[in-house]
């Protein structure tokens, strides 16, 4: 009974922290940079606001048709919002990487290209590996979503490790919002992976794990609210030695994919040149004629 009350209050805490984080992003005018995180929080907030009354209707009308209809609506809204949030979480990871690498444009472009390829291949592999013979559509969807969720969690943890270890060369510190958002995503990703493993080993702990989920999402939302509410320190000036491989790779990456210039090396007929160009070349040729020395002075 105590657990049920605690869980019920955690639902309200989640809604409140979601709203607080959204307000902090809006008040600090962070929507242009963190639009994907804002969309993620807005989706979560809207789905919670719709799911809460449905949950109460279901509990109050447990054995009649009203309760059944409420459960059907709850079921679809829960899973549709989960699918939308999974896609948005992937976009949050992508945008955080883009923001973190903003000062190094070349490496940013290269990294985003690699990220897009890795994400696309992971999605294809997830959808392919979820398939098995004699599988119903429902089971295939569950397996595919499960694989996709693991893929997204692994990508998120990779981003967190990257941001944590490359934080100083990128001019950031641990008070930066980029780090705060990455940390929150990393905690959520780890929780998802642990939950996935525990539920695969023991499917009967579903309701117990809701408590852990409630606490984790509360902590993550509180962290994001704090990071957005508090003033962010300015990004430090990035100074790299001219011999730095980081700088060299950034320069190389910046010119990758540029359309090349062309140079004529031979077989060029004189008709291609304008009269003025021919005149310039003639005069230059005359200047290049060096008279042969008649005598060598001592």
């Amino acid at each position: 009974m105590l657990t049920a009350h605690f869980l019920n209050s955690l639902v309200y805490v989640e809604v409140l922290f979601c709203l607080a984080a959204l307000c902090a992003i809006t008040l600090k005018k962070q929507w242009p940079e963190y639009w994907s995180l804002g969309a993620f929080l807005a989706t979560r907030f809207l789905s919670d606001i719709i799911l809460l009354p449905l949950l109460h209707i279901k509990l109050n009308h447990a054995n009649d048709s009203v309760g059944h209809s409420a459960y059907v609506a709850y079921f679809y809204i829960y899973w549709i919002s989960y699918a939308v949030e999974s896609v948005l979480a992937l976009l949050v990871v992508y945008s955080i990487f883009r923001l973190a690498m903003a000062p190094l444009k070349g490496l940013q472009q290269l990294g985003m290209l690699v990220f897009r390829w890795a994400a696309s291949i992971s999605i294809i592999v997830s959808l392919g590996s979820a398939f098995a013979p004699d599988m119903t559509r429902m089971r295939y969807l569950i397996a595919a979503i499960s694989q996709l969720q693991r893929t997204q969690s692994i990508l998120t943890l990779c981003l967190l490790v990257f941001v944590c270890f490359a934080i100083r060369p990128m001019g950031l510190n641990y008070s930066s919002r980029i780090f705060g958002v990455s940390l929150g995503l990393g905690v959520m990703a780890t929780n998802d992976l642990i939950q996935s493993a525990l539920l695969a080993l023991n499917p009967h702990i579903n309701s117990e794990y809701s408590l852990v989920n409630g606490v984790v999402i509360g902590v993550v939302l509180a962290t994001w609210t704090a990071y957005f509410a508090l003033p962010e320190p300015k990004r430090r000036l990035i100074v790299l030695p001219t011999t730095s491989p980081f700088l060299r790779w950034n320069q190389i990456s910046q010119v990758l994919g540029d359309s090349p210039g062309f140079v004529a090396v031979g077989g060029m007929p004189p008709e291609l040149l304008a009269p003025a160009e021919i005149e310039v070349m003639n005069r230059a040729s005359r200047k290049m004629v060096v008279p042969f020395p008649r005598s060598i002075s001592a």
Partner: protein
Amino acid sequence: MKIIVRSLVIALAVTGAIATSYANAASSKTTVTAPVNIHKTSAMPIPGCPPSDPGSC
């Protein structure tokens, strides 16, 4: 501070890697008997039963 944060991040990454290997091993050995074995990180109750039969699980 740096050491604490780095330790936390490494702990998260290692835990995630171990959990992934456990999840893969478990899902390759067992068939899925429950209607759903994933749900989002949220305090909202998980609708695990199919909509046609809400009381089945």
